[in-house]
């Protein structure tokens, strides 16, 4: 089955928002989100409406996450991906049916599936991103350090 497609961008956004937010300018997030809307045929601005507030929130909370062991950061990701997937469903539901909120069992299982697959794949992606993170020049590192 080619149905496993977790939100890799959300994982990268989560990682960089905590460890190096300066590497991820909001304009870049906006462009990626619009690209995703074009490709998935969702209303324009839908993904940006979820990514940007999450990014701003995480950037504010990074002091908390920065010092935590991986397990806590992982739990944090589980919460964020849950929030993201329900937010996605909510906005699409609003754009298709207005404010008539009924979740079909199919939708629910799809959301649950996306969340679980994302949560299980996150450690792998985080490891890759950590390797990238380590190879980055030190000078650039200073810019993103905790102040």
């Amino acid at each position, binding site marked *: 089955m080619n149905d496993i497609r977790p939100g890799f961008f959300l994982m990268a956004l989560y990682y960089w928002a905590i460890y190096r937010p300066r590497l991820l300018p909001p304009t870049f997030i906006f462009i990626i989100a619009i690209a995703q809307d074009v490709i998935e045929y969702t209303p324009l601005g839908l993904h940006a*409406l979820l990514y940007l507030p999450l990014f701003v929130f995480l950037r504010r909370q990074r002091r908390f996450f920065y010092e935590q062991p991986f397990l806590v950061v992982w739990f944090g990701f589980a919460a964020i991906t849950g929030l993201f997937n329900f937010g996605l469903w909510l906005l699409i539901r609003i754009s298709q049916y207005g404010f008539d909120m009924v979740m079909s069992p199919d939708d629910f299982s799809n959301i649950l599936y996306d969340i679980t697959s994302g949560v299980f794949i996150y450690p792998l992606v985080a490891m890759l991103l950590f390797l990238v993170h380590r190879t980055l020049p030190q000078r650039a590192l200073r810019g993103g350090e905790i102040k």
Partner: protein
Amino acid sequence: MPSTLIGCSFLLFVLTSWNVDNLSSVRGGLANIFVPALQFVTTPIQNVTNKISEISGLTQLQAENDALRQENQRLTAWYQVAQQLKSDNDSLRQLMSAKLPESYEFITARTIKDSKKTYAKSLLVSAGLSDGVEKGQAVISRQGVIGRVIESADHASRVLLLTDINARLPVVVGAQKTPSIVAGDNSPSLRLIHTPRELEINEGDLVVTSGHGGLIPSGLTVGHVKIDENGKPYIDASYGLENTEYVRIVNKYTDPALKASLDKLNQ
């Protein structure tokens, strides 16, 4: 800075949710930029996935081979019958001097991204205006019609699947040619609506496109009727939507003179 962007996103969202056709030219322009990039990235990944499934499927190859050989024998027999019928049909048409606009060709395209699991059921395929793909054309997979083109950029098009809540397709059912409309509801089964009450629909009846409305040619297979526990007819589309790595787009009228006269009449 982020708040301005969030504001922009909100405006865009409201505008395009109101009517998905708003900003469609912007969307088309963006698709021309993003789709080739996506295709560049996904092609090697898809090749690797195919290789892996080839290797893991090696053991089933023998059984599949046997099955295919039997099917081939059966199809060869049918091919003879079809040839016979075709020549009969041609000569009868000549006798009646009937003019039937049935010359259409197929454009094969690769699926770049399918959004079957998300909420708008659609495919993004790698053929566009430059290949002759236009809005409204029917799209078929191995099992029959799966949707139609709703948006077409230079080198890519968007296919709305029959299972989408907004998809409607005029069809005829069974030997009685009962007219009906196939309607999606975001689930894998398609409903048959607006069927005349006095006409019967039976389990197993073949559903083909009626060609009404002129957008989609008549006689393309959609599926077979099943009856649910409430006695309502439906078509199970899950099987047809599984093999959509490559799809064929039906370019309906290849004769330019015929297309021109049809356009004139439709004005």
